[in-house]
């Protein structure tokens, strides 16, 4: 009887296992092997860590890592703060229509948002034109560089616009579940607005904010389209470096490209594990972030 149940579960899971175990994990194993000295098209047939060691002395990789961390940390932090603020601002007043509209930017693909941003904040974009008509600048060259720029402002802004609604919705879902009782209680006990925020509301919604921020962080760390369109060729973000080297006509670049992708995968996996740990400890919101 027990065997029967187990066999049935195994059969039901078999097609999914083929995708996760065969394609996803299988692909990862092959990629790992190719980055560890088993890439036959260029005659590599023995274990070596040299593709990883060479990354340590690779100026482009190190600059890319720095750039990736800067963009990811900044965009995640700004999104978390603005997303929390938006959730709190909408907490009491938001109508169903506003809550529904909040889903629209969430539904826009990152690629489309990046296209919009280019036309807005490029040197001859709409913002620069508005500044011109206000008499603040005389030529596109006077507009600060916000795309293909040193600090990746365009990339960060695109991510913030996309991730703020995500974090806000996660926080609002938890807020709705908690209800107003704690808030009212704190008020009855004489807490000021700021005290209530600091000691009651923020601690209550922090699980949702932290968990969704981890999701945002690991997504931005590995995502490709936005830095590909809005970023500079150097220093590029890690995903762009990996893609560029992988598609290089010179096949000897490929093991190193895969090594870069493996670094991204390792960090993302670590964050996924962290997220799972966080959400499983925080009972109430486990369902939201997993399903």
């Amino acid at each position, binding site marked *: 009887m027990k065997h029967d149940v187990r066999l049935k*579960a195994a059969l039901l899971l078999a097609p999914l296992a083929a*995708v996760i175990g065969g394609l996803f994990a299988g692909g990862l194993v092959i990629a790992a092997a190719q980055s560890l000295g088993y890439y036959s098209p260029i005659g590599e047939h023995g274990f070596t860590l040299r593709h990883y060691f060479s990354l340590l002395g690779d100026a482009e990789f190190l600059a890319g890592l720095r750039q990736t961390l800067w963009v990811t940390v900044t965009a995640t932090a700004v999104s978390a703060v603005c997303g929390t603020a938006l959730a709190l601002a909408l907490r009491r007043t938001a109508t169903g229509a*506003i809550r529904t509209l909040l889903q629209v930017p969430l539904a826009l693909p990152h*690629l489309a948002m990046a296209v919009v941003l280019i036309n807005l904040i490029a040197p001859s974009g709409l913002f620069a034109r508005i500044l011109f008509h206000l008499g603040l600048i005389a030529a596109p060259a006077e507009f600060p560089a916000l795309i293909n720029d040193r600090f990746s402002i365009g990339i960060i802004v695109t991510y913030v616009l996309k991730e703020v609604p995500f974090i806000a*919705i996660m926080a609002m879902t938890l807020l709705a579940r908690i209800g107003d009782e704690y808030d009212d209680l704190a008020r009855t006990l004489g807490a000021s607005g700021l005290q209530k925020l600091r000691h009651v509301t923020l601690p209550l919604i922090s699980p949702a904010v932290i968990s969704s921020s981890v999701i945002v962080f690991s997504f931005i760390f590995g995502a490709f389209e936005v830095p590909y369109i809005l970023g500079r060729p150097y220093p590029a973000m890690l995903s762009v470096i990996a893609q560029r080297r992988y598609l290089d006509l010179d096949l000897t670049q490929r093991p190193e490209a895969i090594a870069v992708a493996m670094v991204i995968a390792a960090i993302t996996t670590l964050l996924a594990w962290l997220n799972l740990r966080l959400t499983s400890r925080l009972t109430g919101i486990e369902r939201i972030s997993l399903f």
Partner: protein
Amino acid sequence: MKSDIRSRTAGTTGAAAVIALATIPVLLLVVWSFSRGWFWPALLPAEWSLRAWRYVADPGAEVAPSLLASFGLASAVTIASLLIALPAARALAWHDFRGKRAVFFGLLLPVLAPPLASAMGVHALFLEAGIADTWVGVMLVHLIPAAPYTTMVLTGSFSRFDPEYEAQARTLGAGPFAIWRRVTLPAIAPGLAVAAVFAFLISWSQYLLTLLVGGSGVRTLPLILVSFQRSGDEAVTAALSLVFIAPAIVVFILAARFMKNSLIHEDTRRDHEE
């Protein structure tokens, strides 16, 4: 009293921000797509034109075939994902077994971030198998993020559905097909719709996986969109962007009309698979 006013001001500001974020990007794309000769420092296009839209609709140009291809690909990925996810979600929701947490972790991984390294390995595998640069290869690689996501959504639906209902229908003499049609399907229908929509959108908006595995053989809409963006044709890029976001907008409108709260919460995870 004062804090009431403050919270109302904050609420109004927040609502204004939401309205701006939801409408301005789409409106701007519409204006750009009809623009012609919109040079510095004009605030509005000097001339309006249908050129970009004519080009997008021209069956002889490269857009129309890629549109059809993207649609067919996303539909195939949706059907395959549902066929994979339906049995898996039943097992995950109703059976307890060792390693269940590991399965959930495995589901989460390809969903959280674009599985770049994995796609590179899959590419090597497909080169050997002769399906690199083909639609079949691209469809299979799109399943890596789509099938786990679909499974997560459906597991949620099945875990809210008591398998006893199926058992009762069986006792009453219903066959497997009747049970599925009359009992199970109506119960999980909302989750099924959400799962299908996300599988479609995941495939539809996929860029990097298509590029890596499809090479020059597979030209989907996002690939064409990026190449127009790089060529600097703003009007066609805007028109293509609108076509690109159309399915998401259509789904959003349908969802807002037909489904309420519970589903909208399930939506929130979707964003991260694009």
